[in-house]
């Protein structure tokens, strides 16, 4: 019994002093974020992201010939993003057929990424971006955009900027960053945002819930701050792969010193 009373008093104290989120994060703290590029050998570019417990893999193919042809444009390329959730990514199991939700998200993701590309350079072609949600934990559209941007860069497609995305929302009366599944479902509102950090433009903006105008604007601004943090992680993921290339070159140089074969070095550099 004494334990119980002790607990109560500590609880009261803490609720006055500190307000904590479900997972103990600060209001402006992102979930653990890990991005890896070049994870699908067959794809022209690819990335894998873990944002909280979201697990998403993105493959990029193209620019390549558009099929079916009637969807191609004579004067520019087309970006085609497909957002798809695996049947086992949520509980209970969902049908693998694309839902209306999937279709809408595919559209807004395309809108979010397209401003970063030079599509006018690829007439009659298509760039396909396939995002597969392996596990969903709230904020999958943002995580998909983050991985897709890294995968496009990994594919060597010229970009004006990376696209970084993060949501903010209102949970338990507070404006918080990067809502997890629980906060997303139980919270008052959710504002996913995608941002071009160098250009300073918002390319994805949605909102659902009940918030005043002021709160909404605060959410957008907080989400942009989150996007900037994501941007660093995205650059890191690309540098990591680039770093590996450097390592490979170093190894090749060592090899060259050992064997004196110049041809192998050239091949390595081309890759």
């Amino acid at each position, binding site marked *: 019994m004494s334990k119980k009373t002790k607990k109560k008093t500590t609880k009261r104290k803490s609720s006055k002093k500190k307000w904590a989120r479900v997972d103990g994060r600060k209001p402006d703290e992102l979930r653990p974020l890990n991005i890896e590029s070049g994870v699908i050998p067959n794809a022209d570019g690819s990335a894998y992201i873990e944002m909280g417990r979201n697990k998403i893999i993105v493959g990029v193919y193209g620019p390549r010939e558009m099929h079916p042809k009637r969807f191609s*444009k004579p*004067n*520019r390329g087309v*970006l085609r993003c497909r957002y798809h959730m695996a049947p086992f990514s949520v509980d*209970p199991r969902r049908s693998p057929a694309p839902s*209306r*939700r999937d*279709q*809408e998200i595919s*559209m*807004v993701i*395309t*809108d979010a990424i*397209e*401003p970063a590309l030079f599509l006018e350079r690829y007439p009659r072609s298509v760039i396909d971006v396939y995002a597969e949600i392996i596990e969903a934990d709230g904020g999958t559209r943002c995580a998909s955009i983050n991985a897709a941007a890294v995968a496009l860069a990994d594919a060597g497609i010229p970009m004006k900027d990376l696209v970084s995305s993060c949501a903010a929302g209102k949970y338990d009366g507070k404006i918080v960053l990067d809502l997890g599944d629980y906060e997303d479902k139980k919270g008052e*509102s959710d*504002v996913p945002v995608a941002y*071009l950090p160098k*250009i*300073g*433009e*918002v*390319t*994805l*903006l*949605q*909102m*659902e*819930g*009940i*918030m*005043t*105008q002021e709160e*909404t*604007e605060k959410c*957008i*601004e907080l989400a*942009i701050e989150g996007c900037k943090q994501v941007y660093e992680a995205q650059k890191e993921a690309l540098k990591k792969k680039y770093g590996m290339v450097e390592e490979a070159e170093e190894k090749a140089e060592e090899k060259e010193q050992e064997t004196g074969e110049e041809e192998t070095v050239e091949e390595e550099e081309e890759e």
Partner: protein
Amino acid sequence: MSNTIVSRLKRKKITDVLATGKRMDGRDLLQYRDWEIKTNFLAKSEGSAEVRLGKTHVVVGVKVDVGHPFEDTPDAGVMMVNAEYTPAAHPTWEPGPPSDDAIELARVVDRGLRAAEILDMEKLGLVSGEKVQMIFIDLYVLNYDGNLIDACSAGALAALTTADAPKFKVSKEEEVEKTDKTEKLKLKAHPVAVTVCKIGDSLIVDPTYDEEEVKDGRITITVDENGNLNAIQKRGAVGFTVDEIKKCINIASEKAAEIRAIALAGE
């Protein structure tokens, strides 16, 4: 379409006129076309609204029925919004499964109503886990001349406020029976959507088909009667600066009251 030669010429013409502070049809940048909303004009549906916004013409039908609840909400009623792009409404629309735009229209209107908690879903339950009231809202586009989201959202609100929903009787054997009595649906909020279009540097409301065709992007904002925002949807392969977004939100907050008054006039 916005990159074919014809629409590039069209875009130039439209942006040139916008630069003078007027529109092709003589309107101001932030002026809606004339609204005409007729409610309860269909005998066989519980609620209905016919909306004419300039040449845009949509019919919204509200049907109330009995059905199964979702597993995770055994006592909550179900609200469904569906949009139909009828092939009669535009030369480029064809019969077939709903296009991406039709899906978006339904989902954005749905999101606005749902997020505003327009209906108390828990009050629509009949037999727990077995039977609940289903509210179907069907958006039927009969002529397309731009700005479908605003027209449909105002129509949905008008149709819901004037709907005569049947009263249901639940017997001891948990049989649900439709009675002859009707009652109005109890709406907890009155959300309406305002779409702000970006063409070049100009922000306009209520775009026509031509303006939609040459637009860069748009932001739809749903606002309730207390000035709270309920839903936002940005479309178009273009970025908005934070300042532009704030301007859009201000425009929407201002215009929403105007549209709400028109949508609720038939009440």
